Structure formats: C-alpha cells, structure tokens
C-alpha cells in the first residue's frame, strides 16, 4: 500500500476512536463538575457533589473511612440498585447456563427432526421486540403474584438471555469432539468425573463468554424490569432512566459511570475471546 494512504488511514482510525469515546469523556467531565453549562468546554467548577448526592461519597468533612462505611451501610438507593442488578444478573446467568447446557449439547452434536424449528423458536426472542410479549405477560404475572417480586424479574430476564446462551453454547458444541469423553470413559472415569475433567475444560472458554453476555443482557434490561418489577425491584437501568429524565446531568453521568463500569471490565477480559476465532461470535453469526 501507498505509504501516504496508509498514514491517512491510521489517522482516520485515531479520529474515529476519538469520536467514539467523546460520550465517555462527557460522562466523566459531567460527573465531576458543577454547573457545567454551554458554552464552557472545561467546567469552571469541579465538584464531587453528584457523588455526594448519590450518597456514594460522604459530605466534605466526613470523608474518613468511618464516614464512607457509615454512608454505604445506610444502604443508599444506588448501592441498593447496584446490588439488585448484580444479584439478578448473576442468578439469571447461572440458571440460564445450567438450563442451556444440555439443550446446546443436543443441538450442537445431534441431528434430528424439527431441529431447525426448535432453533427458530429459541432465537425468536432476539427478533421479535420485547414490548410484544411483556405487555401481555404483565397482567398474568400480576395475578400470579410474580409482579413486583425478585423471582418474577429473574424469570422474565431469562427470555432475552436464553437465545444468546443456547446459541453461543450450541456453537461451542458444534466444534466439540465427544470422542474425548468416550476416551475418558474407557480409561475408567465415571460420568461426573468425565464432565468435570473433560467436558467442562473443553467448553469453559466459550461458556465464560456466553455467561458474560448473558449477564450483560440482564444488566442492561430496562423495559422488562420496569414492567414486571412494578417499581419494587429497583435496578441500575431504572435508576439511570429516571435520573436521565430528572434533568441533572452530573447525577446522570455519575450513575451512568457506575452502570457502565462492569460492562467495560467484561469487555476488557473477553476481548481476546471475542475478537478471535471463537465459538461465541460464530454463535452470534448463526442467528
């Protein structure tokens, strides 16, 4: 390639990267400033007020270890929502993996009648909008007493997560050779040991990616939690949404930073799985 062209190319990439992280920069400035209005580019007043109002950092003068502990143990709304989001996300992820594992194995390794139909049914929640099922589900959940409960929210989160987990893991099993298991069995390993010593290590990398994606889908869920949680189950996205419409950019930015932190962390740890040639992305491609 022509050298000048190559240079232009690289600069274009840098520019693209800069544009892509502009919102992130805006989040950080907003979260640590006060009255950052047009046309200031650099805020005149730097401040932790947003974090103080979210009760994540104590008021000035109380910023000792005890101050922080007192504040955090008083269970402020953000920490409560954070814990709810984490608990629901982890719970739903584990359950979905356990449920999807046998199904993915069957779908990935065996051929049978109606397999295409079954896969089609499984992926349909990724195509059809959530609003189409959750509005109808709402009334049923209320009369069953699931509405407003942790259980109900977890249950409804399974719907958008299931297709991703099943597909990703089907992709893994499609490239998996069950003869390894047969070999282990002939060498004297029982079923349980075979699973833990042979199957699990082989599918673990893909499973980790599936789990992280499942967690992220649950973590970002707004509409389903809002309707089924009936306000009783407060999660971070609900908090972000309501803060975003309450008109304080500093607060919105601060909560958003907390909200995106795990996402960035997950990307950081999975980037090598995801960008490489892995079952995870091929799973997405198969949808």
């Amino acid at each position, binding site marked *: 390639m022509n050298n000048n062209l190559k240079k232009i190319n690289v600069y274009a990439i840098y520019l693209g990267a800069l544009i892509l992280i502009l919102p992130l920069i805006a989040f950080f400035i907003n979260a640590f400033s*006060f*009255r950052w*209005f*047009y*046309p200031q580019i650099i805020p005149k007043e730097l401040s932790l*007020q947003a974090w103080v*109002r979210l*009760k994540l950092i104590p008021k000035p003068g109380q910023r000792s270890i005890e101050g922080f502990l007192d504040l955090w143990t008083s269970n*402020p*709304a953000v920490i409560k929502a954070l814990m709810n989001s984490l608990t629901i996300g982890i719970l739903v992820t584990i359950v979905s993996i356990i449920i999807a594992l046998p199904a993915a194995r069957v779908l990935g390794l065996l051929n049978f009648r109606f397999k295409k139909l079954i896969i089609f049914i499984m992926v349909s929640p990724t195509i059809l909008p959530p609003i189409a099922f959750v509005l109808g589900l*709402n*009334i049923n959940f*209320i*009369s069953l*007493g699931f*509405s*407003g409960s942790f259980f109900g929210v977890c249950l409804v989160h399974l719907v958008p997560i299931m297709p991703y987990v099943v597909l990703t893991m089907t992709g893994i099993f499609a490239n998996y050779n069950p003869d390894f298991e047969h070999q282990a069995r002939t060498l004297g390993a029982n079923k349980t040991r075979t699973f833990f010593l042979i199957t699990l290590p082989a599918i673990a990398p893909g499973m980790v990616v599936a789990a992280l994606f499942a967690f992220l889908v649950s973590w970002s869920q707004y509409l389903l939690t809002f309707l089924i949680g*009936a*306000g*009783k189950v*407060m999660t971070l996205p*609900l*908090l972000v*949404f*309501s*803060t975003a*419409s*309450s*008109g*304080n*950019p*500093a*607060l919105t930015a601060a909560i958003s930073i907390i909200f995106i932190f795990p996402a960035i962390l997950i990307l950081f740890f999975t980037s090598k799985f995801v960008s490489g040639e892995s079952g995870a992305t091929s799973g997405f491609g198969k949808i």
Partner: protein
Amino acid sequence: MKLKIIIFTIISLLFSKLVTAETAPGFSSWDEVVKAADGGQVNVYMWGGSDAINGFVDDFYGVPLKEKYNITLNRVPLKGTVDAVNQVLSEKEAGVTGDGGSIDLIWINGENFWTLKQANLLYGPFAAGLPNSEFVAWDNPAVNLDFGRPVDGMESPWSSAQFHFMYDSARSNYDDMPRSYAELSDWISSNPGRFTYIRPGKGGFVGTRFVKQIFFELSGGQEQWVGPFNQDLYDKWAPKVWELLNSWENDLWRGGETYPKDNAEMHSLFANGEVDLDFTQSPRGAGPTNTAGTTPPTSRAFAFYENMIGDFNYWAIPYNAPNKAAALVYANLVLEPELQAAQVQPANGFCCGWGISTAKVTDAAGKAAIADAQNNLGDAAEDQNILAKALVSDIAAEYQDLIEADWEANVLLK
C-alpha cells in the same frame, strides 16, 4: 435529639387519645398504627423527575422513618404519577386485594387522584386520623377540594406550589420581563427562538398549567372557570387559545417543531442558554434549581400579575397497599412543622411550599423553624406579594385531559 423524640411521642400519644374517633380504617388507635408499622418497609411511588425532591425525601423522611419508627423507605421514582395509577388499575384488573399490592403511597393530585377515588381504589378516609392533621387548613377550599373535587379525607396534603417563571439575571433584566400573556406574545416576537413551553401531556402538567392560564387571561379571569366542568365555556375559548399558540410558533425554539417533554428538559434548555425563560413551581423561585446546579446561579424568578395557578399536592394510599400502617406514619411525618419548614428552606432543595397552615402551629420549636424558613426566602424568589396577588386555584380535572388532547391535535399535529 432524645428530647425531641420524647416530646414527639408525648404529642402523638396525646393526639391518639384526642382523635380516637377519627383513626384510619382498620386501626383503633395511632399507637396501634405505629406498632404495626414497626420494622416494615414503605413503598413510596412518586414522580422522580426532580432530583432535588428525590434527595429531599431520602434525606428528610428516610432517616427519621428509620430512626424513629424503624421503617425502611423505598422511594420508587416514576416518569409520571399516572404510572402508579396504572399499576393500581392493573392490580385491580388482576384481582389483587387485601395487602397484596405493591404501592403504599402515591404522591398525587388532580386527575390521577380523581381516577383512583372514583374507582374506589383508595384506602381511607384516613387524613383526619393523622395526629398532624391538626395543622392542616381543612376548612380552606384550596385544601379540601383538589382540582375542584372533594378530597373527603382520601388523601393528605404534603405541600403547595404556584406556577411562575424564571429568567437569568446575567442575560435579561427583571424590568423587561413580561407580566401577562399579551406581553409575553410581544416578548416572543421580539426574541425569536428564545422561548418554548413544556408540552401539555404526560409528565408535562406544568405545560398544561401554562396553557390553562391562557384560557383565564383570554376569557377575562379565572372566576368563571371555578366549579364543575363546562364544555360550552371551553369550546368558546379553546379556538382562540390555539390561535394564539399557533401565532407564536415560528418564533418559538426550533420553530415550534418540538417542545420539551418536562420541566427537567426545560431547565436544561434554559441553563445551556438555548432559551431565555423557564418555568418554576416553587415559591422560592429559582432557589431550588440554583442550589442543585441545574440552572445558572444567577437565575431569578418573576410572575405575571394575574392568573398564576397554585395548588396543593397530597399523599394517597391505594386500597391494596401492603403496609398501610407505615403509609399512615409517613403521611403523618411529612406534616411535622419542622419538616414542613425544612421543605421550604431553599438550601434543602425541595421546590414546593407549605402543606400546613403555619398559623396553626403552636409549639416553640415548630414556630421558630417556620419563622426561620420564612425569613430565608433567598434572592432567587419573586416578591411574595406579587405571587399572592396573582394566585388562582386550579380547575376541574376534565379540562386537563381535554387541553392535552386538543393541544396535540390543534398545535402539535396541526
């Protein structure tokens, strides 16, 4: 602190004795209410569009609820109060009764209250059974009527508000501000692109109020609008109102192509210099938003000389509230004179006014707190006399629905 608690318990004990006849349904005494509420959680569903109010509720109610009554406050922010109404309706539809619901309290007034009250979906009457009910001016029609409809003890007041405007003293002069809709029309045409109003509709009740006041001014006063809904009266004036609003259109922000959805969006436009006027509901004018940092510190308030709607807002308890005792404790707590004083203090960030009649407070601590609050209006407030003179009450709830639907058809979609 301990002394306060003791005094408080004594007062509440006294009252529980005095008003036994009027305790809330299902409880024989206030003592029983407090006892039943102990250790529970109260689910408070309220419009969450102002982080100042959200913070105030968490700080000033959440802490004493926990410390004095061992009640955990679960504040649920809503995009609009109608979401909570809708939830109660859904629960009714699904046959959830007893204490199987999810909402203990709704911050409510006007049409939403009327919807629930008419459908028999509220618990009560309970308001008079609250010990602090003695501070409420129940004889005042502005309190015992909500948008012209009888309250009947099915909701208990929290605070009051009055519509007026904000400007930025760094950008404009107080003397140049319009003082009526006629003057506002002129102001808009000489400042093109610098004004907008909140869309009347869900979450935009302040905008509806802005439009309602035009009806009052064009028709020559608010008096004829008081009382039951009058379709003929509305039909007579509505076309003229739409005509006026449409005549502004080209000189509005973005040429009237779109409007801010709620006060938060309006504040942001104002703070960033996209428009020059903003709305406020607070007797303290620009004080609350200045403190919160959502408007520039140089923001100030002004009011028209007439037709500025003011009203009370309330707490209501749904028929299937899971913890009615805690809801009662909460509704009572917010009427504490000292907390009422706190909600008026500009520094605390709450944007509304008194829910009680300050004259009825007799104890020294309460009186001192009230006096302090009244002397501490801040320089961001409009002259209280101008506000008082311009004050008119809100009108029948049917108008609100009609104005919102017709505005959409005649102004937005025209």
